[in-house]
């Protein structure tokens, strides 16, 4: 899990266009409040798919799926379960 969180932070740093440092952001912090636009969330999603070798189904393309580091981590755990 913590390894995933580290990878998620790196992706957010590169693609999230956050106004705050992704490395020090609390896992529960609201990423949209931290400056992530809807367009940046697409880039984050595509980078996550590449990093974790998963595909987000449309049903998971919810605002809540990308609202925090912990939310993203939960979705990644769900998508990688059983792989």
């Amino acid at each position, binding site marked *: 899990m913590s390894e995933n969180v580290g990878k998620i932070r790196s992706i957010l740093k590169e693609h999230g266009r956050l106004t705050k440092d992704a490395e020090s952001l609390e896992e529960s912090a609201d990423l949209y409040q931290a400056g992530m636009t809807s*367009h940046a969330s697409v880039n984050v999603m*595509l980078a996550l798919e590449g990093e974790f070798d998963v595909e987000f189904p*449309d049903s998971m*393309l919810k605002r809540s799926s990308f609202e925090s580091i912990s939310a993203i981590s939960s979705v990644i755990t769900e998508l990688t379960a059983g792989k």
Partner: protein
Amino acid sequence: MMVVGIDLVSIARIAESVATFGDKFLARVFTAGELAYARAKPDSLAARFAAKEATKKALQLDGVGWNEIEVVRRPSGACELQLHGAARAAADAIGATDLALSLSHEDNYATAIVVARCEKA
């Protein structure tokens, strides 16, 4: 009641996404019809992305694919929205009709506004 949604997108950021993720980004966000017209036009791609986000805001759509919201260009140049799959179903569920769309872009930004009549919102 009437509902409305608006979105503003940086054209350069859309071009960056195309440069970084290529067809993966394009296929995930846009339909074949949209790409046939706008693939090589970052300003038109950005306007279409704004239209999809404006539609989501107007109809409060969540958990739908971007390519389930399509901007269709008429021969006159006027654009309109077509919804597919889960987006269509969600719009029907709230009784959304008479979707109207307007797009604009200038220099660095593209914007879109969507208005609809909504029976059950």
